[in-house]
């Protein structure tokens, strides 16, 4: 088993934090340099035809791509501590919040970065104005998230879950285009401080 990883990118970090929270620390990582587009080379496209990172390689040679699919595999083979819900309803609640954090925080931060950064210049057709719209949307969603966190410790309720991992990485990645937690967002700041000080945040 091994994981194709790139330390500079947000999605691979989701899996690294997830594994750290699970206490799984014996999986080798192989770096695939996104900066030199190694993920778009023919050899890598055989591993993941979408070209994304991370990818999990199982011992039988199967490749599992998509961060959350990889997390779900590990949740299933090592259920403790639960990071994706404990019963039918809780699993749905966690998935709902994880998806909200994906589309509205991480997705908007990514839309902002993809359309405005030099990194993507020449790689994709950039529409700067659309990048600005994504940034504004992300900033608004952080305001909303601050109100959500007024009466709960974590994003999906009383327990740390994959939704916290996605939100943490979305917010940290947002810094690349100056999407930041505002001073008056005390609940969000308290939560960010708490999740960032877990050892897994350094993974």
């Amino acid at each position, binding site marked *: 088993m091994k994981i194709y990883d790139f330390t500079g990118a947000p999605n691979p970090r989701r899996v690294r934090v997830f594994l750290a929270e699970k206490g799984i620390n014996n999986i080798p990582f192989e770096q695939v340099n996104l900066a030199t587009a190694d993920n778009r080379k023919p050899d890598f496209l055989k591993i993941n035809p979408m070209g994304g990172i991370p990818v999990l390689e199982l011992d039988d040679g199967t490749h599992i*791509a*998509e961060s*959350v*699919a990889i997390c779900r*595999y590990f949740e299933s083979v090592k259920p403790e501590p639960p990071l994706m819900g404990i019963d039918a*309803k809780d*699993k749905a*609640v966690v998935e709902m919040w994880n998806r909200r954090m994906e589309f509205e925080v991480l997705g908007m931060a990514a839309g902002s970065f993809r359309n405005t950064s030099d990194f993507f210049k020449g790689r994709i057709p950039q529409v700067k*104005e659309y990048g600005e*719209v994504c940034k504004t949307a992300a900033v608004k969603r952080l305001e909303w998230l601050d109100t959500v966190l007024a009466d709960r410790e974590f994003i999906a309720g009383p327990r740390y879950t994959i939704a916290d991992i996605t939100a943490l990485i979305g917010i940290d990645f947002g810094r690349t285009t100056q999407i930041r937690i505002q001073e008056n967002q005390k609940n969000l700041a308290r939560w960010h401080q708490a999740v960032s000080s877990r050892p897994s945040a350094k993974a």
Partner: protein
Amino acid sequence: MKIYDFALAPNPRRLRIFVAEKGLKIPVEQVDIFAGKNRTPEMLARNPAGGLPVIELDDGTHLAESVAICRYLESLHPEPNLMGKNSREQAEIEMWNRRVELGLFGAAGRAFQHTNELFKERLKQFPEYGETQRETTRQQLQWLDAQIGNKPFIATDRFTIADITAEVAVDFAAQLAGVTADPALRNLARWYQSVSSRPSANA
């Protein structure tokens, strides 16, 4: 239990097909997105993100996000299995569901939002960006054709949630995003013919 639905939108259709494949009968209530009824204070109390579908459980809990709702129903009614029977299958199906969601379905959605009259008043449209997303939609259809190859279904050897997402995305791209699948994409056409002739496709 009931589902807040809107017959003309793609995400609610994903859930309706899923429910039909499970052989379930759940009452639905229409919420007219075109008239902005998903943004009323009552609906925002059920789903602050404003999207549809939303399911209301008998204890009053509301769950949003199509795939989270599907996962809840999958837990309650495991057969026929649509999201994986074991760790490996669950990861594989989630991988494919997300590939189609983030690739084809996402691109078609952004093309629609940035080029369709319906969204003129609701968001700042960038037709130029919409065109890049139409092109991405075309590329994703080609990609999917190559990935399907000779396979009967998108993930594993049976019909799964990944087929539902792809089927809804192909129809949505054609009906609302202005991108019809090229008939020369034979694998895609064969697969589409097969999934869209299932009774659930009319849900």
